[in-house]
């Protein structure tokens, strides 16, 4: 990137002396700051402070009566009035050597250099894009999310009886995950388009609504854009996921993981926090029945659209709506920083709390934490 230097510009710092001159005798550096400067023509003044370190409190040093008035400069520390001697630098001979003049780049050389510079620039742009993806989109999304949240609050405050209308890209519910912190909440937008997901998690169009039998499915980003579902892999079975709508709180709990299904009722399922969480498996069917594949966490390929079916991974007609379980499914990309697979969290509705009983999430949180 550096260009040709001005002639001699860089060499200045090596040595001003032309080569071949003898080694310089130790000389006084004219601009030495610590030694008091002598006025032109002035006779060498006697040392103001003897080098033996005698202090001024002792017998006054011999002073010429015609000495000039005391200078304003503070007395230099002992020893510094001695002549400053410049020693040869170690390897001083090298420093005085002439540097060979930079070779002129030919046409080819200049082209190679330009290509190199372009490649370095391209690398920097790619790095910058990664910074954008991981951090800057967070900033943009934070603004959109807070806007959507304010708007949702305003709408909910207006009319409590109105049935929520689903408008593409507009928020209609809110998700809270207590284990991620009391302040973890995002609005849920209708649709899973890029624009909707920039604001926050998005509801798969056509899937059930919160609390309904069937599968309320929500997608969210894991990296960048607010990364609402960044920590989804940290959820464990029976962790609560709260969906807030205009009228109700719906408390879902993560279903048992595959390795916990065996002996669930006697094992983890007996813990108080797993109250009302079953395996959903049909004990009479070898494959577990309609919900045999619905475990708390699954990793699937992106093409597995059946994940968000009313009965996940099964034909939509397998069960009539009345027999369907109310599920909440969260999807995000997996592994982190990749889109090769999808991380799926399935949870089941365990409780519905109308807002006329518990007004806000802040009031609800201590009540539902007791069981944990």
């Amino acid at each position, binding site marked *: 990137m550096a*260009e*040709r230097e001005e002639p001699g510009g860089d060499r200045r710092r090596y040595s001003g002396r032309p080569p071949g001159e003898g080694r310089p005798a130790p000389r006084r550096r004219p601009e030495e700051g610590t030694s008091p400067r002598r006025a032109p023509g002035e006779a060498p003044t006697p040392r103001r402070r003897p080098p033996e370190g005698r202090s001024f409190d002792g017998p006054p040093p011999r002073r010429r009566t015609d000495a000039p008035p005391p200078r304003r400069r503070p007395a230099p520390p002992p020893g510094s009035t001695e002549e400053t001697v410049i020693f040869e630098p170690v390897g001083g001979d090298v420093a005085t050597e002439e540097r060979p003049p930079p070779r002129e780049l030919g046409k080819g050389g200049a082209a190679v250099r*330009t290509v190199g510079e372009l490649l370095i620039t391209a690398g920097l742009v790619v790095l910058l*894009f990664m910074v954008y993806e991981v951090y800057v989109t967070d900033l943009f999304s934070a603004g959109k999310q807070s806007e959507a949240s304010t708007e949702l609050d305003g709408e909910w405050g207006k009319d409590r009886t109105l049935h929520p209308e689903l408008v593409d890209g507009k928020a209609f519910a809110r998700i809270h995950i207590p284990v991620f912190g009391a302040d973890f909440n995002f609005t849920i937008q209708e649709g899973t388009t890029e624009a909707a997901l920039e604001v926050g998690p*998005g509801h798969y169009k056509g899937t059930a609504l919160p609390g309904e039998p069937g599968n309320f499915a929500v997608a*969210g980003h894991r990296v960048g854009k607010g990364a609402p579902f960044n920590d989804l892999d940290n959820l464990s079975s029976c962790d609560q996921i709260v969906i807030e709508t205009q009228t109700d709180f719906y408390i879902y709990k993560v279903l048992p993981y595959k390795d916990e299904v065996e002996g669930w009722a006697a094992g983890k399922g007996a813990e108080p926090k797993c109250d009302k969480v079953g395996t959903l498996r049909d004990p009479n069917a070898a494959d577990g029945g309609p919900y045999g594949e619905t475990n708390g966490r699954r990793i699937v390929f*992106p093409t597995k*659209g059946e994940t968000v079916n009313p009965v996940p991974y099964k034909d939509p007609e397998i069960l009539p709506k009345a027999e369907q379980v109310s599920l909440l499914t969260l*999807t995000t990309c997996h592994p982190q*920083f990749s889109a090769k697979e999808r991380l799926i969290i399935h949870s089941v509705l365990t409780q519905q709390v109308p807002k006329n009983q518990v007004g806000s999430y802040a009031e609800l949180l201590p009540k539902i934490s007791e069981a944990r």
Partner: protein
Amino acid sequence: MYGWIWRKLPGPFAVKLATAVVLALGIVALLMFVVFPWLEPRLWFNEVSVQ
């Protein structure tokens, strides 16, 4: 390339440096606010849904 730009910048060193910094920041802003938002939906690794 960078050397050529540097030589084209007018003024003494301090002015050149300030102009260069402003130019670099301008390019970063252009990338962040225009190019990347346009480019991003055309890439494949932002998908989080199943279909």
